[in-house]
């Protein structure tokens, strides 16, 4: 009789724990995303990293946080779509690096113009190992920009594999462009395009540094 009661107690305890645990797990993706975003914003507002001279340090700090929340490998793979499969391991690694550089080039300057806009985390929809975290950026003149993050669970971490701004997907955008370049020229043409753009930018940065 005693062990029956003990078992019932254990079950009841388990039930209680399960009930309190459930709300905690809903929103894990949002929590992890919010953590990373907050750290990026703090980095951008850090007085020690402000100013023209601190640009490379600031960008390196942002890039480090970005690598923790974005799965650049997955984003690159989805953007290349069916052109990813025939690539060798070396080519894939090369492409992921070039693509991450492209994204940084394209968006870091926009992120650096951050001036205290509010970010609201409006919803999270989970479907197994996939989640959509919906957010809104409230600009200074009141415009609300919907930004959705598509995330995938890898172990205990949720990583971003696509970002949709106003419903337009980043992966979809690059997928179309990469596909066009590969079909009209070749994959190596795409790689050299990305590489030359990166070289251009590095030359520009050096030029600016000389001026300083």
């Amino acid at each position: 009789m005693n062990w029956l009661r003990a078992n019932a107690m254990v079950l009841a305890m388990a039930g209680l724990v399960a009930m309190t645990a459930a709300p905690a797990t809903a929103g894990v993706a949002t929590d992890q995303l919010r953590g990373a975003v907050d750290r990026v914003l703090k980095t951008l507002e850090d007085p020690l990293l402000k100013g023209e001279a601190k640009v490379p340090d600031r960008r390196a700090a942002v890039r480090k946080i970005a690598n923790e929340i974005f799965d650049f490998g997955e984003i690159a793979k989805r953007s290349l779509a069916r052109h990813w499969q025939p690539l060798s391991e070396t080519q894939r690694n090369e492409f992921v690096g070039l693509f991450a550089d492209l994204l940084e080039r394209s968006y870091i300057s926009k992120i650096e113009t951050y001036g205290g806009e509010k970010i609201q985390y409006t919803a999270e929809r989970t479907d197994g190992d996939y989640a959509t975290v919906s957010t809104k950026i409230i600009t200074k003149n009141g415009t609300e920009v919907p930004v959705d993050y598509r995330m995938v669970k890898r172990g205990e971490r949720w990583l971003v594999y696509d970002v949709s701004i106003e419903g337009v997907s980043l992966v979809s955008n690059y997928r179309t462009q990469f596909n066009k370049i590969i079909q009209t020229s070749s994959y190596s043409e795409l790689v050299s395009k990305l590489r030359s753009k990166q070289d251009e930018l590095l030359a520009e940065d050096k030029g600016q540094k000389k001026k300083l």
Partner: protein
Amino acid sequence: MKRSALDLGVGLFVLIGLLALGWMSVKLGRVDLLGNKGYVVSADFPTVGGLKAGSTIEIAGVEVGRVDRITLHDYQARVVMVIQPQVKLQEDSIASIKTKGLIGERYVRISPGGSEKLIPPNGRIREVEPPVDIEELLSKYIFGKV
């Protein structure tokens, strides 16, 4: 005798005319006489903005299926599609609702992915892009909010 030959001619002419009319109606009205053949996949969109049953589904500009029905599911629009059996959809395919021209009819464009896994019959396309309302976007970014 002449009379009935004429009548026969006229009758035949009318018959051909009716058949031609019927054929045109079927073609223009896109009525599938033999029914939709293929497998069912669905995709959930936050909004479908004018997409309707019978709208086409395209990959690379080629029709690969039709929208069978659109239902409400958990406050999202579930678009149920019938895809031609020989067309395989990768797991990371993206379904976008686009417009023919700038203000034409809505259709679903599927961008093929690169995953080795395929979407099975009665499966779901996870990655979606809702339709973009150009006018709304323009006014939002030109004028800002009150």
